[in-house]
């Protein structure tokens, strides 16, 4: 899907937004770890994904950006099989997610790490036990080895001294970092971040972005970050997919997107009020 630049055809090209929803997908030179193939998803009358075609390349930090309510978080839920498309396919590492059995899906999910918006730490467990949880469930490692891994990961995210704290004793930023540490402990091949910057001040957002880059440089893998924060995109993204109204506006290497001529992409990536995107 990412091997050649192509234009997505549309049957309803007479709508005013259609001229911006070009669906241009630029070549990244590497195969895709995750592919969305003509994915449609509705919740009642709300048609969220409307024929989404998108590829997220292997070994890169990809960002899915777009206005609120445009289906970004729904994309993450499709990748991990928490939601299934009404139509189309989601392919992860060559596996069609909707076609997998429950057992196969649970096995595949062990290759994922997910950082949820608020960390999604288990409220009944201490920070240490939260991070140790995946190791205890999925590995045969002894407590000494688990302690070594957990302490290393907690130190990496700057929470080395907080391991006995309960989640309700942590600030929003600390919970996100703790969620990050937990997402990392199984050395996932794919790491998904659902708005890691939401609710954080600019300095902590910058620090978290640096952390994501550092950890990626160390561990590699396909990282997918969902955000509508342009500063984060500029700091972290190697690949950007701009999503609007459940479809791709444009997708490709970050530098190409920042130089895009598409008025919607230009407006969104520069954060200007004048352009195709209004308050509606």
């Amino acid at each position, binding site marked *: 899907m990412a091997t050649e630049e192509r234009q997505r055809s549309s049957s309803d090209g007479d709508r005013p937004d259609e001229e911006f929803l070009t669906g241009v997908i630029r070549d990244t030179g590497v195969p895709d770890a995750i592919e969305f193939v003509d994915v449609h998803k509705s919740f009642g009358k709300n048609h969220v994904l409307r024929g989404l075609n998108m590829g997220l390349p292997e070994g890169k930090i990809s960002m899915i950006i777009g206005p609120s309510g445009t289906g970004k978080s729904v994309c993450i839920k499709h990748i991990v099989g*928490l939601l299934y498309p009404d139509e189309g396919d989601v392919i992860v590492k060559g596996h069609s997610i909707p076609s997998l059995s429950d057992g196969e899906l*649970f096995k595949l999910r062990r290759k994922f790490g997910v950082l949820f918006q608020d960390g999604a730490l288990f409220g009944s467990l201490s920070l240490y036990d939260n991070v140790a*949880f995946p190791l205890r469930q999925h590995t045969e490692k002894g407590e000494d080895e688990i302690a070594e891994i957990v302490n290393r990961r907690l130190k990496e995210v700057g929470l080395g001294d907080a391991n006995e704290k309960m989640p309700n004793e942590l600030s929003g930023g600390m919970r996100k970092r703790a969620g990050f540490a937990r997402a990392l402990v199984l050395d996932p091949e794919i790491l998904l971040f659902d708005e890691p910057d939401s609710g954080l001040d600019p300095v902590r957002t910058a620090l978290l972005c640096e952390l994501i880059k550092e950890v990626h440089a160390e561990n590699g893998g396909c990282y997918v970050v969902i955000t509508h924060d342009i500063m984060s995109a500029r700091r972290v993204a190697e690949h950007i997919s701009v999503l609007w109204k459940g479809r791709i506006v444009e997708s490709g290497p970050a530098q190409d997107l920042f130089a895009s001529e598409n008025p919607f992409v230009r407006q969104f990536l520069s954060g200007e009020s004048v352009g195709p995107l209004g308050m509606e």
Partner: protein
Amino acid sequence: MGSLLAMPREWLAGSGEIARFMGIVVRDVWTGRVLGFFGETLRQAGILIIYSTLVIWSLVFITGLGPCGIEASYFNEATGTPAYSGVFAAWCNLREAVPIVWGYMLSAKVGTGIVAELGAMRISDEIDALEVMGINSMTFLCATRLAAAWLVLPFMYIAAVGVGYLASYIAIVHQVGYVSSGGFLLIFWQFQNPTDYLFSVIKGMTMATFIILVGCYYGYNAGGGPVGVGRATAKSMVLNLVLVNLISMMGTQIFWGGNPRAPIGG
């Protein structure tokens, strides 16, 4: 006409969904899949013992003391048979009061607790987090709670019946005192046997099973933020109270309706 049928159709679909959910959870326990989370099962068992035992026994004690003890004394005194207070106490405790009070308190303490806990986990993405870690969240959260209940609650129930008996003994023999200890106990034990005891345990455990499953269903499927969790908790309580009374009525009908199992008249 369509709108008239909409509500029963919705109700029927909802019942089917609850039944399916319950079937999956029971299957996970029955097939031993839950043993993959034996540690969590033990943790849930511990929570049940520590946080629910005393409150359930306390309510059973009050019921054994009042409705099944004091009422027994005055009713039998009024009919000129104070020596037969033990009949009232035995039947009241074993067959009706303890199972119902057990069901009420279990619904209020354990059922709503499960809805609130799982509902909060649902809206804060903790259940999704479990799923994406490759853990079957229904087995981990619901089957472990049911297994823990099956592990712990029979013993808690048996002891609860004992607590009810003790309370009635105190009320009839020591508080009101129309009958001697020996006279009370002679009749009291004549009007029950191990089969009655087994029927009572079946009644109590059927209630407990439904209460846990209803709690899990409403908590696991909660949505709509904190308000949604509150609504789910209320709905679960309503359904559990209806189920407790239904199970109590059906249990009495099935176990003692055709044959009261009373040693009267040969």
